């Protein structure tokens, strides 16, 4: 299986005033395509920072990050934006939908930045929403949807540009257990269709559904 993610000696240091705070001390990590991985760790362990680097939202201080064979070290902001747009889907704990836009408009958003014409955007976004079971909620705004439905809109948005990798940051953190189960089933389904999934979570039940668990502690991966 080719590698989806290859990280070599990744470090991340934040500067707080005069002090350098190392958040990631040394991360070496390989995740194959089609994997379903949970990243677990206490808060402050560096798992969110790792997640942001995997998602190309942040850059490592040192080290190499290769995504699908592309070394992203020298990529510019705009190049990273395009990688996020084309290859990565995000699912957040707080859903992060545009509150003034409808479900359909929210799902269409990534396609705007992929230069997909409007008619095709509408068609693909509708398909994505049908796929997550929201066929009847296309024109609802987030405030008119339940938490589980909002998270499913977010998943549809993550899928709509046909990414290779979906990153979910505490996807069930704001949901009750029944809805959480539904959302996790949806992610499992996506993984079965070949999408690599990385979930950051506290929740052992969520981690149990994945194929591999990576534990982060004090900026290092522990086995």
């Amino acid at each position, binding site marked *: 299986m080719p590698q989806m993610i290859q990280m070599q000696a990744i470090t991340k240091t934040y500067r707080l005033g005069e002090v350098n705070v190392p958040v990631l001390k040394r991360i070496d990590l390989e995740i194959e395509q089609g994997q379903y991985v949970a990243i677990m760790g206490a808060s402050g362990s560096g798992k969110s920072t790792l997640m942001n680097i995997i998602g190309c939202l942040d850059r490592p201080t040192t080290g190499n990050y290769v995504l699908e064979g*592309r070394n992203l070290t020298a990529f510019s902001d*705009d190049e990273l934006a395009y990688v*996020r747009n084309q290859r990565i889907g995000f699912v957040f704990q707080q859903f*992060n939908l545009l509150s003034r836009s409808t479900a359909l408009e929210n799902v269409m958003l990534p396609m705007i930045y992929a230069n997909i014409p409007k008619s095709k955007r509408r068609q693909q976004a509708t398909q994505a929403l049908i796929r997550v079971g929201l066929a009847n909620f296309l024109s609802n705004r987030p405030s008119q949807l339940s938490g589980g439905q909002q998270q499913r809109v977010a998943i549809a948005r993550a899928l709509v540009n046909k990414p290779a990798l979906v990153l979910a940051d505490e996807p069930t953190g704001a949901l009750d257990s029944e809805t959480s189960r539904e959302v996790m089933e949806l992610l499992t389904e996506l993984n*079965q269709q070949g999408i690599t999934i990385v979930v950051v979570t506290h929740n052992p039940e969520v981690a149990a559904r994945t194929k591999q668990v990576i534990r982060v502690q004090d900026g290092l991966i522990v086995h």
Partner: protein
Amino acid sequence: MKTISSPASPQKVLAVKRTDPVSGLEILSMAVEALWGNKLRTGLTMLGVVIGIASVIAIASVGQGVQKATEQRIQALGTDVLQVLPSAARTGGISQGVGSSSTLTWQDAEAIVKEAPAVAAVSAYLQRPGQVVYEKDNHSTNIVGIDLNYSEVKNTKTALGRFLTPEELDQAQSVAILGSTVRDELFGKDSTPIGKKLRIQTESYEIIGVFEPKGSEGSMDRDDQVFIPLTSMSKRIVGNNALSGVAVNGLFVKARSNDDMEAAKFQVVNLLRLRHNLAASQDDDFTIRNQTDIVNTFTAVVGLLTIMVVTIASISLVVGGIGIANIMLVSVVERTREIGIRKAVGAANSDILNQFLVESIVISTVGGSIGMAIGIVTAFLASLAFSFPFVLSIWAIVCGLVLSFIVGLLAGVIPARNAARLDPIAALRSD
């Protein structure tokens, strides 16, 4: 490491960068949506530019209209015409005003044409206010005695009928040419009163023509006049009161060309001083007015005033621009999370920059267009109310649009750059 193989999604061929930026139309529709979502704020933000552009356009248009009116007045006066008036008569040191004495004569006019080479033609006139009567209607007007050169010097033609003949002038015949206002008052609008009889004092005058309308000069309606031969005026209505010759109220002197105006004035002054036997120590007993100078000065003053007021109005445009910048800054802060979301799903910094820049430009140009419409309507109403020509130059419209575009662009630069530079992680975490 535990690995379970599963079918991978086929790897797409991915260029490093998007080849084309998000289309302008797409950005525009996003901007309009965002602005439409907050109509009250958008409207209030626009107001500054609306008022700024409306006042600039209205004032520029009114200024141009007034200048045009003045230009038309110059054309009507003839740009190459000097007016010679008798000096104020003095009674024990009290001036009775220009034109109150009768030192000028028709013979002066004839002498000027003969002796002054820079002069093309001279027309003398003698006028009194008086009543004209047609059947049972009467009308108070100005009765003007004119000579044969009047038509040429004053650049005026008859719209109906004909001008005076030499015989009518020589024999002091009882004929009259009406100004169009007098015709309208006594005979009805657009009527043809040629051949009808008009009574002035005790005598009957045959109407031989109607002058084309000349418009008003200040508060004076130049069409509210009746013209008769200078000889008839002098003999029957005024009575000859000069020591020698036919006394007149003034002369219109037409120079050979605009360039000859100074020469003509010099020649007329010297000739008249000679004819009036003035010693070197004596003042002129006449006054020469160059109407063009007066009107030119007026035009220059109006032009300066217009520029000044437009400048002041432009300040309100600057204030409007600052208002837009301010609201855009607030908007960027409010929409930090939206910006984070857009960046997470793949918006490049330039996409975010363009979005906010376009929002600012849309506010400003839409406001500018509304302001322009209001300004044009205001200028039009003003031109109706104060009866000057309505002037709307393409230049003003283009300037207004370009100006509001630039205001939007400048107002949007800093907020849009702030938005584009936001760190996506921090932006996603914000409330």
